[in-house]
Each structure stands twice: as structure tokens, then as C-alpha cells.
């Protein structure tokens, strides 16, 4: 097994933490950008950069909404993103099992 089998979009600490956090949401649930930022202790700019990289392959869905007059950005894993995270964690487990006989 090589690390090449791991999804490179997810296999970076910052994005892995983003995806792991969004994966705790129930199906159909969305989280605001500031809430996600707080749970990750990341700067807004850093988080935006990683979210764009997760949005490009369709792993994360970004919804712009308005609450009153304030614009709010909601984030969620897409079904494809959730599947990719499941495959990724399963691959990690197989690698760890293989490494420790």
C-alpha cells in the first residue's frame, strides 16, 4: 500500500480537519462559516483557501443565504464528499492494519 491511494484532496492536515468536522453534521445539515472557523481554530483566509480546494472536486457545497440583512455562508459535505471521506478513512485503517501485523 502506498500513500498514493489516499485521496490527495483530503490527505492534508488542514483539509482533513475541515472534512472531519463537516462529517459530524447529520445528512442535510449545514454549518456557518464562522462556526466552522471556530471549531477549527483557523484564520478566515486559510479556511477559505482550503474550502475552495474542497469545493472544486464537489466535496463541499457552499450556500450563500441571508439572515435578516446579514449575508451568511453555509457549508456542508456533499454526498460525494461524505463518500470520499468514508473511503479515505477506510483506506487509512487498512494501511494501519497492514503496518502492524
Amino acid at each position, binding site marked *: 500500500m502506498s500513500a498514493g491511494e489516499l485521496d490527495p484532496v483530503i490527505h492534508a*492536515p488542514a483539509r*482533513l*480537519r475541515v472534512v472531519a468536522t463537516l462529517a459530524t453534521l447529520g445528512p*442535510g445539515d449545514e454549518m456557518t462559516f464562522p*462556526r466552522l472557523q*471556530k*471549531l477549527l481554530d483557523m484564520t478566515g483566509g486559510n479556511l477559505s483557501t482550503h474550502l475552495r480546494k474542497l469545493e472544486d472536486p464537489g466535496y463541499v457545497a457552499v450556500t450563500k443565504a441571508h439572515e435578516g440583512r446579514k449575508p451568511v455562508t453555509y457549508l456542508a459535505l456533499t454526498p460525494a464528499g461524505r463518500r470520499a471521506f468514508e473511503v479515505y478513512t477506510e483506506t487509512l485503517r487498512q494501511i*494501519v492494519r497492514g503496518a502492524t501485523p
Partner: protein
Amino acid sequence: MTDDHQDDAPLDAAASLALIDAQRATVVHRAEPSPTYLFTVWGLAWLLGYGALGWGSRTHDGPPGALAGIIFGVLLLGAAVATGIHIARRAGGVRGPSARAGAMFGWTWTIGFAAVYLIMAGLTRAGASDPVLSLAWNALPAFLVGLLYLAGGALWQEMTMYLLGAWIVLVAGAATLAGIPGNYTVMALAGGGGMLGAALVSVILARRRRGLP
């Protein structure tokens, strides 16, 4: 990728799994209401509040006096405010089916207690005696709390909450059978004590989930 930072260097598999677990634990810690906190707050409010009512009804040899009633009211209101703040802080910033379910569950408490108040107003109007009113004021809210814990435990698959609900509805029944002033002692010790016991159980379960002894 020029905008990648140092923290983007790929980890090995075990470190990646550890990172996922750590992040999940952070989310549970910061974004989920803590059953330990809520059971402790309500357990103390019941233990001391119903304790005050029991003490008040013994010193007056009848229904609890005004001071005992005020202590009880302040403690329960305080617990309700603490619960609201805690849940709003933990559950904020999320929308969707589970946030909706949580909000509906929250409204169920408000609607339920409004109904208890209306029932009690009706019983008072119909000329129910003071002992009957005292017993009903004691039993109905506790019965509602127990049923909602049962419902919440079933909804979120929280066995501790479910068992506590079963215990509380039975305590509501037993307290009514005990009569005045024994009912307040039953509520304080069995009801409040039961909640504090559930708090202890949820501490132990949370530690075990984190792999601590």
C-alpha cells in the same frame, strides 16, 4: 500548489486517523450539549429547590411558605436560563433537519409547561383543595420532564437520558403517593439525586469513549 502551508505536509496513516479522532472530540466537546452539565445543573436545582419546599412545609406544618417557594422558583428559573444559554452556544451556527428537530424538541418543553399551567389553573378554578393542588403542582411538571427525557433519549439514542426519564416519571408517581410533605423529600432525593447520578454515569461514559480509565 504555492498557497499550501507547512501544515499541509501529508501525514502518515496513523497520524491522520489520530487527527480525525482529535477533531471529532473537539466537535463533541464544543458543539454538542453536555449531558453531564445539564444533569448536574438540574440535579442541584431539584435537590436544593425541592429540599427548600420540604423544609418550608415542615416549618409551617402545611404548604411550603413564601420563602421556600421563592428559593425553589429562583433555582429552577436559573437552571432553565443556564440550559438555554448552554444549548444556544453549543448548537448555534447549524441549520438543517437535526437543528430543526432540536428546535422542535425545545418548543415541546415550552408548550408542555404552558399546558401544565393551564391544567393547574383549571383545577384551581374547579375548587381543588390545597393539598390536591400542591400534589398536582409537584407531579405534573415532573411527569412532563420525565416523559420528555424518555422522548429525547429515544430520539437521540441516549440511553442515560432515557433511563433517567423512566426514573423521573416513576418518581413523580411515587412522590404523589407519598403525600405532603414527603413528596418534596422524594423529589429532592430521588429526583434530584437521580439526575446527579445520571450526571456521574455520563462522565464515566464520556471518559470511557475517550479511552480514559
